[in-house]
């Protein structure tokens, strides 16, 4: 799987690059409504066709990628930071702190995660920051569990005892001796989770809870053009393909990271 992981990584990097460069690439304006070219099929001028408002779908998919990918990555980073902190505290402190924090994790995991994210998106005003928070509120739990497990095993190692005997404070041991060792696994888990976050972002967008129109996001493009699938299937096909390929590459990458890290991660 190593080779596939590398290829997936390269493809993903190309996606990200194209999405980031979308504003400077010679593309049609993703916001320009053109009533003379409604729902045109794919052509040289419009590689992915045009949507129900005559906007160029290729350009909207690239611009949408910028939002969708960055929201998913931001959600992964936020989840990792929260989960890292909670896992470190839970594992290092142990005892009652550990019991309470892990009970919170179990509590969150016992809810259907999509509905929880929807509930959060309803409380906060719709937009990309809300989506990030909604995904992260559910996503941090797996990071917390895995980091906690790592901390528990490192805590018993001789170097911790040595640090104690030198007179290091608990803070210093937790932050400078144990925490750095947990960073690699956090990165691996981020790779594993990223594909799922891309899908959740798209789903929330599809349900109308993400960035509001006319801002292009992949999920919202699909729900906006759903009514026209029979006459103009390309309006739905290409944004969905973008979601699928991005999630696919992320998952391939995550998989090979998991294999390379030699760590048996229980998800």
């Amino acid at each position, binding site marked *: 799987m190593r080779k596939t992981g590398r290829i997936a990584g390269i493809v993903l990097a190309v996606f990200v690059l194209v999405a980031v460069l979308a504003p400077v690439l010679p593309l049609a304006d993703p916001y320009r409504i053109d009533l003379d070219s409604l729902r045109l099929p794919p052509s040289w001028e419009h590689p992915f066709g045009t949507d129900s408002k005559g906007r160029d779908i290729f350009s909207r998919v690239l611009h949408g990628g910028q939002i969708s990918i960055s929201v998913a990555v931001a959600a992964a980073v936020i989840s990792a930071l929260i989960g890292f902190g909670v896992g470190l505290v839970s594992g290092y402190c142990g005892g009652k702190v550990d019991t309470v924090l892990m009970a919170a994790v179990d509590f969150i995991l016992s809810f*259907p995660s*999509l509905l929880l994210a929807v509930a959060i998106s309803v*409380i906060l005003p719709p937009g990309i920051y809300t989506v990030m928070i909604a995904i992260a509120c559910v996503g941090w739990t797996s990071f917390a569990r895995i980091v906690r497990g790592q901390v528990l095993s490192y805590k018993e190692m001789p170097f911790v005892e040595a640090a104690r005997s030198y007179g290091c404070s608990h803070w210093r041991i937790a932050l400078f001796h144990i925490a750095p060792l947990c960073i690699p696994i956090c990165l691996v888990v981020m790779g594993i989770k990223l594909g799922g976050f891309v899908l959740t972002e798209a789903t929330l967008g599809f349900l109308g809870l993400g960035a509001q129109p006319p801002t292009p996001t992949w999920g919202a493009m699909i729900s906006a053009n759903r009514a026209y*699938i029979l006459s103009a*299937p390309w309006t739905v096909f290409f944004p969905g393909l973008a*979601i699928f390929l991005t*999630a*696919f590459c992320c998952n391939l990458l995550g*998989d090979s990271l998991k294999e390379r890290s030699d760590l048996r991660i229980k998800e």
Partner: protein
Amino acid sequence: MKSYILKRFVLLIPLLLGITLVSFAMLKSLPGDPVLNLVGERASPEAIESIRRELGTDQGFFRQYAGYLSLLAQGDFGRSYHTNRQVSEELNRKFPNTMRLALATMAIAVPAGILLGVIAAVRRNTIIDRMVQAVTIAGVSIPVFWFGIMLMLLVCLHLRLLPPSGTGGVQFIVLPALVLAVPAAATLARVTRTSVLDAMTMPHVRTAQARGASRRRILLWHVLRNALIPIVTIIGLDFGSYLNGAVVTETIFGWDGIGRFTMDGILKRDYPVIMGCTMIGTVVFVLVNLVTDLLYHYLDPRIRLDEKNR
């Protein structure tokens, strides 16, 4: 065993109390007023006040909670703020639909997932294994709503084989079940592969080989049985989550189930509906966990269910 099951059911009561209290508190602390949502912001203050009194949202938190509990004790989940229908009746109608969809999904996903996983494990590191792995990663990467719409376009609108949406008989259930089954089967196949590979390295498998047992017998009797625990776990988790409603799939295919009901409840701040769905969800979660635990014990008698016997 009976006392164990009984104990689990008794434990359900404090759990439900806790869950209702937490969800009730969370709902009450939300910004936004269900009454304003109901009548619109232009209604006269008198009208708003009278609806508040009617719904009881003008009372204190604990009086409201106590009122809800006493209703609940009589098997009354209250009425929906929006449709004014009994939540219990709605749940009665919608839950069987969700149940049917979940069963149909598992009927596709479980055999497909286990079969793919076993094939991949047996043919480890061959082209077949790689292909199965690629397909399963694709399966977990596919956005359900897009897959559903595309399948609907192909099967219902172009080939005209099945009705595109609605709740009803077999012809309505095939597509949503298939859409849900793809990611479920993919996850299951991945878990099965890992689990079967693990089980194949166990010493008793080598013993069976040495005794001259056939490959098929080893696979079915010695390997698969030991590999089943993680598989059962995943099936339980998936089944539980589908019983709580597959929000997106139900929305796309117009399936009249719990998922859509919950989602609508959340979007409209329909508190009795949200509470009712949370309760049902908790009960389902606990029951599925109980069945999974009983299955663990049945599959591997070394797993003791009652702590005291340890």
